[in-house]
């Protein structure tokens, strides 16, 4: 936790977060005076999701998303909390940078979507072509910007060239200088109503999308693929794909176990807010599901490291995943029932 000053001298407190977008959103809210935690934003913005996109590849590996698409969490959370916000994208990089400077001068802090590879301060293990990383620009400094990256402990300096490169990565999944900021907030938002909306939306996203690659069905799809991958791709390649999947589960700012722990934290907070024991039970179940995902990732790591060849197989990894799918299906069905009973 470090305090920084924005352009107009208003203090901004930098919090370390687990996930870039929710942490940025919660920081923007806090800066405006609404104290709201990161898991709360994640739940209200319906961040939890699953999607396996075999046709969209990054560095040769398919995308497995455990969260809603970048940008959606902020938009949904802001709408549900009754916030006046601005979202902008640009075709021309120069215009995008000018606009950013102008908004910063008015004392706003601005959320930016950037590409992880081109951010100059990132270390090697974080650097890959992923265009959905969110940071906050605090103010302009000489030759660059002061930015607060919530996945890192401290605010850092970023060169203007580097930031421009990262905001306008040409090619597929171009963030197009996506920037967003909050004009004014409702200081006493209706949290209960927002939570109910968020939970309902999450249930629909996980259970009702009629495509086999999203939601609970998507997990089953991927599980079957993992089981088959050994015969289909050979050991080396199958390990690579498995490593790619586990990277999505553990590494890409998920707060552990593919956001499942973060959602459990949200359910815990919601249980306190509504005084509901049922939600507390669901939170415990979500934690168990998170443990299940973690077990999957550890199994995968053991396969890659070739430890305990007898018991750690691709079939076991697939089975663990199917187990996750079944448990999540029951959980979200129960959540649907519980939400109906809650009063705003």
């Amino acid at each position, binding site marked *: 936790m470090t305090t920084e000053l924005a352009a107009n001298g208003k203090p901004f407190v930098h919090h*370390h*977060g*687990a996930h870039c977008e929710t942490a940025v959103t919660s920081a923007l809210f806090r800066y405006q005076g609404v104290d709201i935690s*990161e*898991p709360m934003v994640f739940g209200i913005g319906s961040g939890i999701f699953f999607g396996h996109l075999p046709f969209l*590849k990054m*560095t*040769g590996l398919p995308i497995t998303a455990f969260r809603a698409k970048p940008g959606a969490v902020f938009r949904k959370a802001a709408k549900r909390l009754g916030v006046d916000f601005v979202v902008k994208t640009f075709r021309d990089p120069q215009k995008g940078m000018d606009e950013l400077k102008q908004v910063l001068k008015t004392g706003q802090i601005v959320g930016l979507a950037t590409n992880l*590879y*081109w951010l100059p301060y*990132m*270390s*090697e*293990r*974080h*650097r*890959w*072509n992923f265009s959905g990383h969110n940071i906050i620009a605090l103010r302009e400094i000489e030759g660059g910007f002061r930015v607060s990256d919530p*996945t*890192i*402990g401290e605010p850092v300096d970023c060169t203007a060239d580097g930031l421009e*490169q990262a905001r306008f*990565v*040409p*090619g*597929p999944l171009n963030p197009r200088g996506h920037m967003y900021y909050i004009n004014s907030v409702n200081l006493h938002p209706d949290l209960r109503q927002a939570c109910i909306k968020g939970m309902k939306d999450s249930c629909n996203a996980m259970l009702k999308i009629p495509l086999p690659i999203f939601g609970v069905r998507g997990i089953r799809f991927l599980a079957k693929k993992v089981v088959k991958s050994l015969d289909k791709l050979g050991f080396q390649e199958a*390990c*690579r794909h*498995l*490593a*790619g999947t*586990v*990277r999505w589960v*553990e*590494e890409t*700012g998920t*707060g*552990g176990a593919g956001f499942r*722990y*973060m959602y*459990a*934290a949200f359910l*815990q907070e919601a249980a306190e807010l509504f005084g509901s024991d049922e939600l507390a039970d669901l939170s415990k179940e979500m*934690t168990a599901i998170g443990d299940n995902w*973690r077990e999957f*990732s*550890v199994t*995968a*790591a053991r396969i*890659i*490291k070739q430890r305990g060849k007898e018991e750690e197989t691709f079939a076991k990894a697939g089975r663990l995943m199917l187990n996750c799918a079944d448990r999540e299906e029951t959980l979200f069905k129960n959540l649907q029932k519980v939400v109906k009973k809650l009063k705003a």
Partner: protein
Amino acid sequence: MELEKEIFKDGMPKGYYTQNDNGKYVLETNHCWSEEVCVAVIVSEVRANIEKARKEVLSGLKSPLYYHMEVRQMDPKFLAKAAGIAVFRVKRHMRPEIFAKLKPSVLERYAAVLAVSLEELKTVPNR
């Protein structure tokens, strides 16, 4: 084994939600072992790709463009879309004899996308 420890010693720990003794969720920076393994697999693969590309360029099989593409972790499709050049042309430009004949205007487009100077684009580091 060393690589795993090395790449995680960058002073940029990520946050993870874990339960404390009372069952309440708090943010901590202890990562899971499986993450280390998988990130190491991917990082070593990227490094190996770059090294392989460098050797191929030095032995005259590929053009320097191929090396710089690998350094930026792109593939021909990505690079083609970024530079605004057709994929089949980008793939052709990976051949050294064709790359040598390219017009400066085309080279400049590649240089801008890959964020290297024109001189760098025509060479690879000879470690």
